[in-house]
């Protein structure tokens, strides 16, 4: 048993190094000095307090989306629709704020309402994908993808249509909300302690749910074999629906936080790839909730740090994506290789 753990770590490290190696080759191929490049990623992420804060800002929604997909993964579901769910969260949050901004409801309350609306919105969109899956037999991957497109179009429609700012409808989004409706952030930054707090809380909740609860076990049963789980008395469709709802609510919360703390308005593509990134993180950590916090942080750091690549080395900053993707890919393949070896042995 102990031996396996070491073999495990060995393979993880190996995959990581291999990923680094490949990306280094790519860097060389793209004509950038690798060491300098990695250096500037580091300094870009941790060089200044401002950058560190930027990292934390993109950490928070990533925590939420990852936590969300861990639930759906446990239920054996590929919730690719999470991007759309996050978008709907943003839309609903905006809606909530718009509903009350001109009333004399206390700002704090409005903000809270916004967050709840966001969760509701995400859950609703997830429920759609879930209903299509559980009652319509439509594979959640394709239901979700379709709904992602619809969500994007819906945002653009709202931004240029019903919710367009006075005069100019602009890609820049809806008219920013009054400062009093901003989720309180650390002075001079877009970092909201609330956002971080809620995100970490979400991760903890998921961790506990999947660890030692009946809910978690039944969810796993549903995920691994729905028929059998049903015969064992688990209300299967309710469970997968619930998984969708929970994931959607988390994604929606992430969207709402983007609106209330980061952008202070609704803008197109507000989900910004966090959903897919969450799926990546979940795969990278092999669906083990315990690793969400550090790995999500690592990914966030890569996002922020790699911007320096373009500024300093005039290199397209999609490099961060390349690095993250390759990392996950190789970890997956590494797992496969490990299992094979252990089987042979």
């Amino acid at each position, binding site marked *: 048993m102990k031996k396996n753990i070491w073999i495990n770590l060995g393979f993880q490290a190996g995959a990581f190094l291999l990923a680094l190696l490949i990306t280094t080759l790519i860097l060389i191929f793209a004509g950038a000095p690798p060491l300098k490049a990695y250096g500037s990623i580091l300094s870009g992420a941790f060089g200044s307090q401002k950058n560190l804060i930027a990292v934390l800002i993109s950490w928070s929604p990533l925590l939420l989306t990852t936590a969300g997909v861990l639930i759906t993964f446990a239920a054996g579901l590929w919730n690719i629709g999470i991007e759309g769910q996050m978008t709907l969260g943003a839309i609903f949050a905006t809606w909530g704020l718009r509903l009350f901004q001109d009333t004399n409801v206390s700002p704090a309350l409005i903000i809270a309402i916004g967050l709840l609306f966001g969760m509701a919105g995400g859950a609703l969109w997830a429920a759609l994908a879930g209903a299509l899956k559980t009652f319509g037999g439509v594979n959640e991957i394709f239901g979700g993808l379709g709904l992602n497109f619809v969500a994007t179009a819906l945002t653009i429609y709202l931004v240029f249509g019903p919710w367009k700012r006075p005069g100019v409808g602009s890609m820049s989004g809806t008219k920013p909300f009054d400062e009093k409706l901003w989720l309180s952030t650390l002075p001079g930054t877009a970092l909201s302690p609330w956002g971080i707090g809620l995100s970490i809380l979400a991760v903890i909740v998921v961790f506990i749910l999947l660890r030692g609860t009946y809910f978690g076990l039944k969810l796993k049963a549903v995920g691994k074999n729905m028929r059998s789980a049903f015969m064992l008395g688990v209300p299967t469709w309710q469970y997968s629906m619930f998984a969708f709802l929970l994931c959607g609510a988390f994604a929606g919360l992430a969207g709402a936080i983007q609106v209330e703390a980061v952008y202070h308005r609704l803008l197109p593509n507000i989900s910004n790839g966090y959903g897919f990134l969450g799926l990546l993180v979940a*795969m990278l950590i092999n669906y083990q909730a315990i690793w969400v916090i550090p790995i999500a942080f690592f990914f966030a750091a890569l996002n922020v740090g790699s911007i320096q690549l373009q500024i300093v080395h005039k290199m397209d900053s999609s490099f961060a994506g390349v690095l993250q993707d390759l990392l996950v*890919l190789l970890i*997956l393949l590494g*797992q496969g290789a490990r299992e*094979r070896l252990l089987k042979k042995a």
Partner: protein
Amino acid sequence: MDNVILIGLAGVLAAAAPVLFAVVGETITERAGVINLSLNGTILLSAMSGFAAAYKTQSLLVGFLVGMLVGAIVAFVVAFGSIALRQSQVAIGFVLALTARDLAYFLGVPYMNVPGPTLPGLPLPLLKDIPVLGTLFFRQNAITYLSFLLILAAWIWLFRTRPGLMLQGVGERPAAAFVRGANVNRLRYLYTIIGGAIAGLAGPAYTLSIKPGWMGTQTGLDGVGWIALAITIFGGWNPWRGALGAYLFALLQWLGLVLQPNLPNIPSQVLQVAPFPLMILTLLLVNVGDAEWVQRWLASMPDKTRRLAVKALRAMRASPPAALGTTFERD
């Protein structure tokens, strides 16, 4: 005026060609029991590298070949990861979809907005003068003709030939194919790679023909692959139905812009997104027959209506290859 419509429809046929490559390629792959979810990345990467190659060599042929090569390589990783290393096909495919996409954007920078070669039109003598059909089908370019042929070829191969029969078998019940002498996993490698190569044609078909040139994130191809995957299901793993789906999709998008002036209050984005709800709806119709509540609901119907409803649902349903997404091990 109807001539205008005809030309427009001919344009639709051309515009659908790349998606069609992707759909047929994926159909073949999935028939072998493998899901290649990486299409979106495959298309972007093959689009970029195909264009880059054609630009460097000034040879269209090289461009398309490189596109196919890229598609084949990505597909190989899917096959290797899922067959040799037994990892989830969906997981590998999804990660590859992102990897290939980001690689395309990252490596494509030097080729952005440089003028490259584009595929010339190729009206077929005589044929092109057939009244309606000529305008529709025979004033296209080589790659569009290829897309027409591909539908036919894929269909014949799948449903009329011995190897095609075995291909179906491998995706339907690998163990049975195995005892009938098939080397299941080798075939799965083979067809995954072939399917990937065909899908790899989609990229160059865009950057060398339909939407010439590489413009990085503005090339406007991000998403096509996901659409193609959905159409594959809509097509019920049959090249004909798949092609129909691809054409339907292109048609709807075309209508979206043609009708724009007549629908002053509907934003163009809404018209453009229309195919997706429709797609979801069709997937629903195709699958809903198996749903439990439908069965219960049917059971509660009077006999005659029930018989009819059941027939209707069965007619629509398209069931995937039984072994889709599973691994096969002898023993």
